[in-house]
């Protein structure tokens, strides 16, 4: 055999295959594609080779033991951290070099594990901050009370109350966000994130601190939000009732690496997942 001299030396890497999306989304571009995403903190690989595809209207779950790197993944997706390897495609667009603000404008909104509301502002004002880039007018229109001010303020007010009605929170519009009960604060964070008109909503432990009844309601509301706004949801949660109850695709993370991906049934039966959560079974 004659040796063929190659002109190109391109290194070929696999585009993460075996991604699953709901059947209804198969003809639509995925909302998010994470490819070989990874970040190192001083040599420690907090997240390594993270690959994920989320369908246009999928409710996806990200689970794993404490310290697995779930919130780090959220911080990578929202550009709080810049990844050391890999990329994130949002609606097919590369997010390389974007900052948090740009990522939000590109269509990604999040809530926080430790609630981060604007505590000294009212519930409605919190939602209005979410509407900041949706309903606009300039600084001078605001100071001079120009017609644009009155028109857009009214629009913000209507839209804010509209969004609050998802969780029946219109009556609390004038309450200081910091004085709300815990569950309501979590719901307000979701409303505020929704106000930024995202195509992907990231929820970091939305059911933390909620009682079973509230969790039940939250599950219904997450589905309601998905149906109403036709958006994708990725959630981190420790409450398995919630995850197994509403998540279509589930991704399990341990020590920064994905150890399993699949539907709720597949995940529950996966021996690797069981081992990660419960420890290795002693051999008889």
């Amino acid at each position, binding site marked *: 055999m004659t040796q063929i001299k190659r002109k190109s030396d391109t290194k070929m890497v696999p585009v993460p295959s075996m991604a699953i999306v709901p059947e209804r989304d198969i003809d639509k571009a995925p909302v998010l594609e994470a490819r070989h995403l990874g970040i190192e903190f001083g040599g420690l690989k907090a997240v390594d080779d993270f690959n994920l595809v989320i369908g246009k209207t999928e409710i996806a779950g990200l689970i794993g033991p404490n310290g697995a790197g779930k919130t780090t993944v959220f911080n990578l997706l*929202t550009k*709080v951290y810049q990844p050391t390897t890999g990329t994130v495609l949002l609606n097919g667009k590369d997010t390389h070099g974007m*900052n*948090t*603000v740009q*990522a*939000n*404008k590109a269509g990604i*909104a*999040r809530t*926080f594990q430790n609630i*981060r*509301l*604007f*505590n*000294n*502002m*009212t519930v*409605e*004002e919190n939602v*209005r*901050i*979410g509407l*900041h*880039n949706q*309903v*606009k*007018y*300039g*600084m001078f*229109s*605001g*100071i*001079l*009370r120009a017609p644009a*001010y009155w028109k*857009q*303020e009214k629009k*913000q007010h209507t839209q804010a109350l509209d969004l609050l009605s998802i969780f029946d929170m219109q009556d609390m*519009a*004038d309450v200081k966000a910091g004085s709300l009960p815990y569950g309501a604060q979590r719901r307000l964070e979701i409303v*505020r*994130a929704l106000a*930024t008109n995202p195509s992907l909503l990231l929820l970091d432990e939305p059911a933390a601190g909620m009682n079973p009844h509230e969790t039940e309601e939250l599950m219904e509301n997450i589905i309601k939000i998905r149906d109403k706004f036709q958006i994708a949801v990725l959630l981190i949660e420790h409450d398995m009732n919630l995850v197994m109850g509403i998540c279509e695709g589930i991704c399990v993370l341990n020590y920064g690496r994905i150890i399993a991906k699949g539907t709720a049934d597949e995940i529950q039966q996966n021996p690797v997942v069981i081992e990660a959560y419960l420890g290795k079974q002693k051999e008889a």
Partner: protein
Amino acid sequence: MKMSKKFRSNLITYALVIVAFIICQLAVEGTIDGFKMSRSLKGQLVPICVYIVMAVSLNLTVGISGELSLGHAGFMSVGAFSGIVMSSWLVSAFQFENETLRLIIAMVTGGLFAGIAGVLIGIPVLRLRGDYLAIVTLAFGEIIRNVMNCLYFSLDGAKLYIGFSNPNLPGKLLVNGPAGATGVDKISTFVMGFALILFTLFVVLNLVNSRSGRAIMAIRDNRIAAESMGINVTKYKMMAFVTSAVLAGMAGALYGLNYSTVTAAKFRFDTSILVLVFVVLGGIGNIRGSIIAATVLTILPEVLRAFSDYRMLVYAIVLIVVMLATNSPLLMNLVERIRPKKKTAAKEGEAQ
């Protein structure tokens, strides 16, 4: 419902200022028998206006934007000197004698230059947070004062000469380095000071209750959350900082044109601290509180003249007592119970 609540609170603030102004005006003119303002207090009227504007504008940075700035007097000095130069130049170049218009143009000029200084200082400073920001603003305040100490302006007809550490300029020397501006036309009036207060309140209150103001407060409350809601942090911090600098510059012009001699030494670090005391005492983020605190604390040293040598000691004690009182839950409860009485008392304090 919420809007009307805020609207009412703003209305009270405007009403407070207007009523205080009318009472002061009556006392100055002495139309009512036995109700006449003393000379020393009359001399304090314009400074009170200046300090109110300074306190309200600093409250925009410290209270609304949540950045501790210790260089506010720097912007005041930029405004004062540019205002003085502008007002003198108008006279010598155009024989423009209308005092009110000259004062307005001087204030606008002062605001403009202080705004430029605000942008230049804001670019490096607003990258910092917390204590670091406070210390760097302090340093910039001192830098501005020292630069002002070396500046020389002279007027030769319509020509304006600027010298840096060089007093040998043609024409009549207007600003003479460390000796400051001398022979300034005293064109500031109490009425114009009152107008500037109204203007400041209009700008600050309207800004706070708008889309931009909410963005500024959101950054103060939680920077990370604000960023992830798509709010451009640098832009809105800059907006608050520069607006505050512009208003301080306008107050500076009013202050500068109230005295025949103005030196850079008047805008030292302690002036910045004094204004900060007004803001803290009046309640951080509380505009009405800033107005009352600035008024009372400017009058207080005059009233305490009876104590002669112990004047500043009593002043300090009053300050400490008030600070303790406003932070004590026990006393706050008590105040809550006798609230209506306290409100009228505050108004009288404002008016004397």
